[in-house]
C-alpha cells in the first residue's frame, strides 16, 4: 500500500501543471461545499433563533393586557404591567410546557451605553430559564453574572456588532446608580429589541427592593460624581411582566387551555406563529440551497470525470504496460485511484482550510454585509465538518476517476498499448 501511494505521489509530481489543475478543482469543490454548508447552517440557526426569540408559542401577561403581549416582545418597549412570579410555578408544572422564561420590563432610561447616548428600554430576564435570547449571543448558559448586561446590537451604535464574538466587552454602563459591565451583544433583529438593554432578573429585584449594590458601584459613584438614574417606583417585589412559553410540538392550543383552566389572573395569548411562518417561508429556500449543493457536487463530479477521462486516455499505454508486467486490473486501478484520491485529499484539505480561515477571519464583515448571524460551529464540529467535506471531495475524485479507469481496464493490455501509441 505504501508503495502504491509512493508511486501515485510521484506520478502526481511528474505532471505538476496537471496535478495543480486536479487539486485546484478539488480545492474549489471543497471550498464551495464548506462555505455553502456553513451559510446554510448559519441560516438555519438564524431562523431557529428568530423563532425562539420572537416566536414564543404562548405569552402569559396580567389579566387585561393580552392585547399588548406580542407587541411588547417585538418592540422591547417597557410597559408598566406586572404580575406575581408565583404564576410561573403552576404553569411550569404542565408537562407539555417545554420552556418557560419570565421577563420583567423595568423602564426606559436615558443613559450612555458604549459611548452612545440614547433612550434604552431596560428588561430583566432569568438567564437560567431563558430560551429567547440565548440563540442570539455567543454567551453560554451560566456565564452571565449579576453585574453584567446584554445589549441589543444597536445599543452600542450601528457598528458595535464588531464586538459580537468577544467573550467580554470592556464597557461600563451606569444604570440606577450602579455600574454594569457589558458582557455581550445580541445579533440584530431589525426590531425595537435591538436597542434594549437586558439585565439579570435577580439584580433587577435587588434594585427594586432598594438595595445598594455596593459591589457594583464605581469610584465615581461612590464619590457622587456621576449623575445616574434611579428605578422608578413602585414595582412589586416579586414582579414579572410576562412569561414566554415554548410548548412541545403540536400542543400549543392544549397548553393554552390548561393554563386557562388554572384560573390564574392572567391572559394567555398565542404567539404570532413567527417561527412556523419563517420556517414555511424559508423551506423553499432551504430546499433550493440543498438542490444547488447537490448540483454543485454533480457538476464537480462531471468536471473531474472529464479531466480524468483525458488523463486516463493519455495514459492508456502505461496502463497496458503495467498489466503486461503482471499487474491485475485491481492493482492497476488501485494505483490510478490512489492518484485521484491523493489529488482529492490534498485539494480538499486546501479548500476546507482556505474556506474555514477565510470565513472565520471575515466573520464580522460578513455579518455586517449579509445581516446573517454566522454562528460558527465549535472547533470539534468544525473539524468533523471539514473531515466529512474532505472525504466527500476524495470520493468525488475517486468516483470520477473510476469511470474512465474502468473503461481503460476493460480493453486488452495490448490494445491499450497500441491505442496509447
Amino acid at each position, binding site marked *: 500500500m505504501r508503495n502504491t501511494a509512493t*508511486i501515485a505521489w510521484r*506520478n502526481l509530481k511528474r505532471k505538476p501543471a496537471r496535478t495543480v489543475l486536479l487539486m485546484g478543482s478539488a480545492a474549489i469543490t471543497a471550498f464551495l461545499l464548506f462555505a455553502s454548508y456553513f451559510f446554510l447552517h448559519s441560516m438555519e440557526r438564524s431562523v431557529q433563533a428568530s423563532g425562539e426569540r420572537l416566536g414564543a408559542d404562548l405569552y402569559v401577561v396580567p389579566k387585561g393586557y393580552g392585547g399588548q403581549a406580542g407587541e411588547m416582545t417585538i418592540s422591547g418597549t417597557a410597559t408598566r404591567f406586572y404580575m406575581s412570579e408565583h404564576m410561573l410555578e403552576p404553569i411550569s408544572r404542565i408537562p407539555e410546557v417545554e420552556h418557560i422564561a419570565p421577563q420583567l420590563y423595568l423602564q426606559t432610561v436615558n443613559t450612555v451605553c458604549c459611548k452612545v447616548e440614547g433612550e434604552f428600554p431596560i428588561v430583566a430576564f432569568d438567564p437560567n430559564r431563558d430560551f429567547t435570547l440565548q440563540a442570539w449571543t455567543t454567551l453560554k448558559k451560566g456565564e452571565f453574572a449579576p453585574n453584567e448586561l446584554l445589549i441589543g446590537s444597536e445599543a452600542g451604535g450601528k457598528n458595535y456588532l464588531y464586538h459580537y464574538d468577544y467573550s467580554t466587552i470592556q464597557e461600563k454602563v451606569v444604570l440606577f446608580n450602579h455600574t454594569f459591565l457589558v458582557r455581550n451583544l445580541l445579533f440584530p433583529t431589525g426590531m425595537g429589541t435591538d436597542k434594549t438593554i437586558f439585565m439579570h432578573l435577580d439584580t433587577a429585584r435587588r434594585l427594586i427592593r432598594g438595595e445598594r449594590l455596593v459591589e457594583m458601584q464605581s469610584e465615581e459613584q461612590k464619590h457622587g460624581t456621576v449623575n445616574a438614574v434611579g428605578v422608578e417606583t413602585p414595582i412589586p417585589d416579586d414582579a414579572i411582566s410576562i412569561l414566554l412559553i415554548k410548548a412541545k410540538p403540536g400542543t400549543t392550543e392544549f397548553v393554552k387551555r390548561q393554563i386557562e383552566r388554572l384560573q390564574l389572573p392572567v391572559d394567555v395569548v398565542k404567539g404570532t406563529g413567527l417561527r412556523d411562518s419563517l420556517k414555511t417561508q424559508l423551506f423553499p429556500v432551504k430546499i433550493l440551497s440543498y438542490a444547488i449543493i447537490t448540483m454543485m457536487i454533480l457538476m464537480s463530479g462531471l468536471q473531474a470525470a472529464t479531466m480524468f477521462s483525458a488523463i486516463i486516455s493519455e495514459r492508456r499505454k502505461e496502463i497496458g504496460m503495467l498489466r503486461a508486467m*503482471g*499487474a*491485475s*486490473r485491481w492493482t492497476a486501478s488501485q494505483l490510478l485511484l490512489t492518484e485521484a484520491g491523493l489529488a482529492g485529499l490534498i485539494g480538499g484539505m486546501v479548500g476546507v482550510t482556505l474556506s474555514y480561515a477565510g470565513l472565520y477571519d471575515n466573520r464580522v464583515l460578513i455579518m455586517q454585509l449579509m445581516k446573517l448571524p454566522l454562528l460558527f460551529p465549535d472547533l470539534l464540529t468544525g473539524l468533523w465538518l471539514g473531515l466529512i467535506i474532505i472525504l466527500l471531495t476524495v470520493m468525488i475524485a475517486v468516483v470520477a476517476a473510476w469511470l474512465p479507469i474502468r473503461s481503460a481496464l476493460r480493453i486488452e493490455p495490448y490494445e491499450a498499448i497500441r491505442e496509447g501509441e
Partner: protein
Amino acid sequence: MSETMIQMQNISKRYTLSFEVHRHALEDVTISIHRGEFVAVTGPSGSGKSTFLAIAGLIDTPTSGELTLAGRSMTQADEDERTAFRASTCGFVFQFPSLIPTMTVRENILLPTMLQAQNRPKRWRKEKGAADSGSFSRTAGQAISPDDRADQLLDRVGLLDKQHDLPYRLSGGEQRRVALARALIHHPPLLLADEPTGALDPENAALIMRLFHELNRDGTTIVMVTHDMEIAGQTERMISLKNGLCIRD
C-alpha cells in the same frame, strides 16, 4: 521431444475497424514453440508479428483457435488466470522501453515485483498456484530476494553504477537494457520481445542480442519479433508472417 511452451492451433485475430470493416491480423496460424527455443518472428509491417506476440503473452485474446501455454489451455482462461500466468511466466520487452520517469533505474526494474505483490492477495494466490502448477517457472535462483535479483540483473546489463539514476539520464540503449532487466526480475521462463533492437545502434543491438543468447543458454524460451533479417538470422528458428498468415517456419 522437449515440452511445448507455446501451442497455437488455428489461431485467428480479427480487429473491427468500423461496422462493416474488419482486418485480419492473424489467420489460422498453427505453431508450436518448445521450451528453451530462441525464435525470431519476422515479416513486413502489418504482417501480424506483434499480434502474434501479444496473443502468445496473453495480453491479447484470439478471435478463434486454441492456445495452450506451458501445457495449460488458455483459450477459456479468465482475466485473473491470465494475469497470474503473465506474472509468473512471461517477461515482456517492448519496442519502446516505457520506463516510469519518476522512478530510478533500480525501482523501475523492481516495479513488476511490487505490482504483483499488490495484486488481490487471496484470489491471486489461488490463481498463481494454479498457474505455477502448469507453467515452467524455474525454482533454481528464485530463492533470492527481489533486491538481490535486481543487483544480479543490473550487473548483467552493465548498469550497476547507474541504478540510482532517473531514466532521462540514460541513453536509448541503456533504457532498453533497463526494460530487459525489468522483464527478467521475476525469473520468467518465457521472454517475449517486440523489436528489442529497433532504433538501436549496432553496438547496443549486439549487446542486447548477446544478453538474449545468455538467457537462452540459461533455459529461457525467447520469442523475438523483428523485421531485421540480420538479427533474425542470429536465432535458431525463424517464423515468417505475411498478411496474418504463417508463410515460413
